[in-house]
């Protein structure tokens, strides 16, 4: 029993914590991740509190202010920086004079919902297909892999347009966008999951779990999914902003949210001609999108690290400990 005694007793002072709490503890230790989470929390809060804040400003997202725009000059807002004033904190929209502050907030609701919702759909389908391909038999693998190829090959926007055209007009549009993007753009996630699963599957602990006599689903859920979490979360962090970009492109092509509903994508899609005449109109939604992207990326990095219990003590494990080297699958020897 010498080897037991010789191991330094790590973190002796810490009470045993459940998995989730441990992850949270590790996450808390990363300042950048916390800051990112705070930013995202604030965004969500702002989106949720949009009606309150609108009331505070005294504006609503759909009221036209014809007097605030210069009709003879294409409807450019009167005043500086897109018409910023005490009544309109971030100015007004060109052409209509609608309040930018409130529209950005309401836009956040739609954009975050669509981006997160679509990401969830993509990840769920990606997981299901990727796991199915990696764990199923030859036939299932080849069928699902080809299905994935088909999905990746589909020009997303064309089919999104077709889908939006086919679905009845009274179906809630943000939800439709969630499904259109989610159901069409999961190919790369599925590929990622399949690849990761194939390499995880080779590990002995998965074999050990099979020997417990639990169902395949149980094995996948308990042994594979936690291992997939890190790469999938990292990837999802890129999916979120790219889904907002897709949403905006769909607005650009006329199949985005229904007017008068604002979304960041909708605002961007009408903004690209206003670069010179009203730069604020472009910069506001663009910077919201940038901040969101940055926050998701940083947070995902943090979560990825926090999910891995080894990360906390990576330094101590160091490089080339005798045992750790054996982990690599043995090649063709």
């Amino acid at each position, binding site marked *: *029993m*010498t*080897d*037991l005694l*010789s*191991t*330094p007793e*790590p*973190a002796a002072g810490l009470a*045993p*914590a459940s*998995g989730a709490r441990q992850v949270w503890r590790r996450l808390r230790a990363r300042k950048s991740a916390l800051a990112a989470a705070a930013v995202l929390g604030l965004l969500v809060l702002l989106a949720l509190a949009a009606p309150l804040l609108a009331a505070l400003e005294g504006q609503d997202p759909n009221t036209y202010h014809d007097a605030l725009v210069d009709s003879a000059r294409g409807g450019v807002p009167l005043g500086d920086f897109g018409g910023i004033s005490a009544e309109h904190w971030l100015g007004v929209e060109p052409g209509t004079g609608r309040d930018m502050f409130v529209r950005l907030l309401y836009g956040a609701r739609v954009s975050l919902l669509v981006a997160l919702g679509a990401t969830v759909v993509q990840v769920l389908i990606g997981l299901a297909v990727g796991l199915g391909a990696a764990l199923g038999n030859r036939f299932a693998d080849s069928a699902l892999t080809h299905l994935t190829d088909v999905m990746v090959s589909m020009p997303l926007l064309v089919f999104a347009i077709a889908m939006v055209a086919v679905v009845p007009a009274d179906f809630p549009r943000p939800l439709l966008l969630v499904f259109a993007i989610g159901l069409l753009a999961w190919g790369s996630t599925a590929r990622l999951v399949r690849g990761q699963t194939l390499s995880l599957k080779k*590990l*002995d*602990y998965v*074999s*050990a*779990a*099979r*020997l*417990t*006599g*639990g*169902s*395949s689903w*149980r094995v996948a859920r*308990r*042994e594979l999914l*936690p*291992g997939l979490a890190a790469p999938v979360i990292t990837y999802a962090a890129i999916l979120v902003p790219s889904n907002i970009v897709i949403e905006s492109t769909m607005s650009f092509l006329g199949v985005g949210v229904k007017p008068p509903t604002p979304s960041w994508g909708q605002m961007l899609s009408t903004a690209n001609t206003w670069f010179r005449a009203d730069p604020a109109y472009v910069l506001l939604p663009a910077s919201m999108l940038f901040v969101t992207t940055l926050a998701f990326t940083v947070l995902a990095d943090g979560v990825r690290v926090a*999910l*891995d*219990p*080894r990360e*906390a*003590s990576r*330094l*101590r*494990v*160091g*490089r*080339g*400990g*005798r*045992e*750790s*080297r*054996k*982990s*690599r699958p*043995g*090649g*063709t*020897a």
Partner: protein
Amino acid sequence: MTAGTEPLVSVTDLSVAFPTGDGVVRAVDGLSFTLARGGALGIVGESGSGKSTAAYALLGLHRDTGAEVSGSVTVAGHDVLAAGDAELRALRGGVAAMVFQDPLSSLDPYQAIGDQIAEVYRTHRKDASRRAARERATEVLDRVGIPDAARRARSRPHEFSGGMRQRALIAMALACEPRLLVADEPTTALDVTVQAQILDLLRDLREETGTGLILVTHDLGVAAGTVDELLVMKDGRAVEHAPVRTVLDTPRETYTRDLLAAVPRLNVRRKVVAKRPVPSVEGAVEGSAEGAADTGVLLEAEGLTRTFGRGRKAVTAVEEVSLTVRAGETIGVVGESGSGKTTLGRMLVRLLEPTGGALRYRGRDIGGLKERELRAFRSELQMVFQDPVSSLNPRRSVGESIADPLRAAGRLGDAEIVARVRELLERVGLDPGAYHRYPHEFSGGQRQRVGIARALAPEPRLIVCDEPVSALDVTTQAQVVRLLGEIQRDLGVALVFIAHDLAVVRQVSDRLVVMKGGRIVEEGAADTLYERPGHPYTQGLLAAVPRLEKAEAAA
């Protein structure tokens, strides 16, 4: 040590500390030693003793890693700790060269072996042409015994066998004619026969080139025949430093004696302990033949075959293997890498589906059952895996991993499961409070114990242990083997013990099976087989086991 000349290596009061989240870990603590020109020193100790850390310090490999290094290290006149980057680079490989443990991962998988050696050569001989470098690579490959070296220099590492890769690594070390070779566990990942060849090679090279050698190993048996002096390390300190014979014959420290005792020996018969009554195999599985229960046959393989791949590329890993495991007995399966023993083990617990033959568990053929149908049997057939790292899910606490089979069975409540897991932890010699800790917090030996606890959890009738100790150092090996023996005795569970090392298996097995090329070449009662091996292959295996006695004789 030859008086009057400056020693090749001189280490004084060396300390290496790694700052971690929980404080500073002192891996090496006040170590001092010297090595004369052309001398050979073995640094031995179990894992965590700081022996590799000390070896790395000789080449200044801790620089820029965050480690705190103090003391002084002088190699062939170079002050390693004070040397500038350029001087240090010149030292590495040029003056002192390192031979690493795992030859597969230590070579660049994408490049031809000859090119890699040539690159090292050109790093130190700036004026050498590419052509000259390639010639040198061929030359050293030839020297280390790679047949047809000029052609094989163009091969990539995965095209080499394990032994050839290790030779290639040694060739790389020789490329620039260094004055010191530092070999870090150079034979641990190899089969015994190959290990013997590599050790012979190191010996020959020393004699021929006069290079100094520092051999880092956990196995006194490996060091015994290869070095002149032994330095025994424990917890970062030297506990004993003396000529090899002195250490082997008259070890001063208990620790050294423990290390010596742990070296697996072939000449130790298995202690026959009064076995507990073997649990009867009542309640036989539905549809099983009545007779099977009476004979005590638990698992029966008949003409078991497994082929991977299809068509021309098909490889048959196991061919026509027949084997019977009775309740409560231990069968050792021995063979070198590629002999198909792991594949066989995995088929026995049905992690792999046989492509031919029959596998009967308590009379019922389970060879072709689907995953769903197998579930009923899963808990009765368990496995302990070779790799202590990949066999535990790094993201789940060890308690949860052990509890897994219990939860899957769903018979026990939460509190009962926790109690049972604590009991199991205790049974395998771990702190019951370790429930909530994660695998990375454990040493390799401890992780293997966790793996054993997990296998025990569902109260199986058979456990297949697939090289459970081959990744562990000798002391730990001995402990784990002892534990398995105890468990087998106490619980009456049947064991199939797979190993590449005959010495290890000897201590636990009732019967022995020797495999080669996917087939069984010899089979018999353990003692008979060890004392009167019939097949030349078995004889070869036995001969290759390093012996402390041999070293004594040689010295």
